[in-house]
């Protein structure tokens, strides 16, 4: 093996190095709006960061089938991974689908487990699985009703403006994710007083760009929100919903979807429909699920994003 490695072509060596990163997690450095992949060097990124936070998503507590009959255990492992980070995250963001069926006991399980996360606060937005039957009332009662009980809100942290949006309510037949006029009007006011140099992080459950509309992976009125965001120098949009990492760069806007803590879904268009990817190689589930670590470095454009699989 060593002989082969010594004699191998540089391209092949580079490829094997990339494979090694994929197992450990990938570090994404955003420079001038362009994503650069790098080695997961724990010390380097963490040392000069202003602060960091973790994104988790799609825990689907209440799901009980292949490939993960125990999403409670995998959420517990994700929280252990958060707690094992070398630098304690300032907060955790959960981008929705906490529950599978919006049942009170499913919400209780998530709230109880996340009390064990070593961080000062957990921010939530609902997924479509969290607003079943009651338009999200049970979710908002537990995890915060935001502005006027509608679920959306914003906050500032070390000079970065965070906006939490809800795009899973009042969905329309034949449509996609939906923000609605009231929320868009609030967003306009919320952003109005900010200088264009303020870094913005937006999080919402469903992708904020047309990732794969045939499977419902998009938000039908997101263009109006993005128009309001375009004047800012650095905008990072974090979504869940599709249980896999997909990224897009559009000018100063970068879009990222996160892995699930429960189970993966197929790549866009791979197979007849979305849904749990059931036929994983034996013992490989943990390579497909995990958490995301985000670090902000003052004075740079964009954020450093690191993916950690459970495996």
């Amino acid at each position, binding site marked *: 093996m060593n002989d082969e490695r010594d004699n191998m072509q540089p391209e092949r060596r580079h490829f094997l190095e990339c494979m090694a990163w994929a197992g450990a997690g990938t570090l994404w450095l955003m420079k001038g709006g362009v994503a650069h992949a790098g080695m997961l060097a724990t010390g380097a990124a963490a040392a000069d960061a202003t602060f960091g936070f973790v994104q988790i998503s799609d825990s689907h507590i209440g*799901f009980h089938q292949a490939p993960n009959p125990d999403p409670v255990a995998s959420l517990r492992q994700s929280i252990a991974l958060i707690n094992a980070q070398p630098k304690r995250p300032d907060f955790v963001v959960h981008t929705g689908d906490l529950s*599978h069926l919006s049942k009170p006991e499913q919400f209780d399980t998530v709230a109880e487990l996340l009390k064990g996360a070593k961080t000062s606060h957990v921010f939530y937005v609902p997924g479509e699985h969290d607003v079943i*039957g009651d338009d999200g009332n049970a979710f908002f009662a537990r995890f915060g009703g935001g502005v006027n009980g509608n679920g959306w809100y914003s906050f500032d942290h070390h000079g970065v403006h965070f906006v939490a949006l809800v795009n899973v309510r009042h969905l*329309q*037949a034949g449509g*996609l994710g939906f923000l609605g006029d009231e929320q868009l009007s609030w967003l306009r006011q919320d952003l109005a007083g900010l200088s264009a140099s303020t870094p913005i992080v937006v999080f919402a459950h469903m992708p904020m760009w047309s990732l794969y509309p045939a499977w*419902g992976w998009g938000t039908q009125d997101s263009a109006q929100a993005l128009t309001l965001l375009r004047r800012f120098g650095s905008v990072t949009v974090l979504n869940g919903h599709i249980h896999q990492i997909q990224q897009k760069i559009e000018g100063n806007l970068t879009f990222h979807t996160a892995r699930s803590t429960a189970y993966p879904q197929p790549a866009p268009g791979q197979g007849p429909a979305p849904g749990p990817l059931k036929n994983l190689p034996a013992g490989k589930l943990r390579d497909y699920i995990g958490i995301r670590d985000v670090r902000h470095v003052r004075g740079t454009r964009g954020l450093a994003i690191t993916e950690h699989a459970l495996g």
Partner: protein
Amino acid sequence: MRWHSVAFAVSLLVASVAHAAKPATTYRVGIRDFQFQPRQIVVPVHARVTWTNHDEEPHIVTSVGNTFHSSPALDTNDHYSATFDKPGTYTYFCSIHPQMTGTIVVR
């Protein structure tokens, strides 16, 4: 799950006894791969339509314009029935996967 099925069978029995004078035919719509199958069905007045979810994902049969009672969340293998007593075109969708749409035409 077994008791659930028994309870459902009993309730069907009770329903058919109660409406013995006017037995309604049941028409079935499957939910598979995020699609209502068939997507459109034509049924007679008083027909009973039963949806069964075969996906791992939950789905909700939601009437557009609230013209019939919408279902609760249907988990895998759950079913839901509605009876259509008036002629008309009833459109519905899944309120958590709104790209899924279907139509019941009652003649």
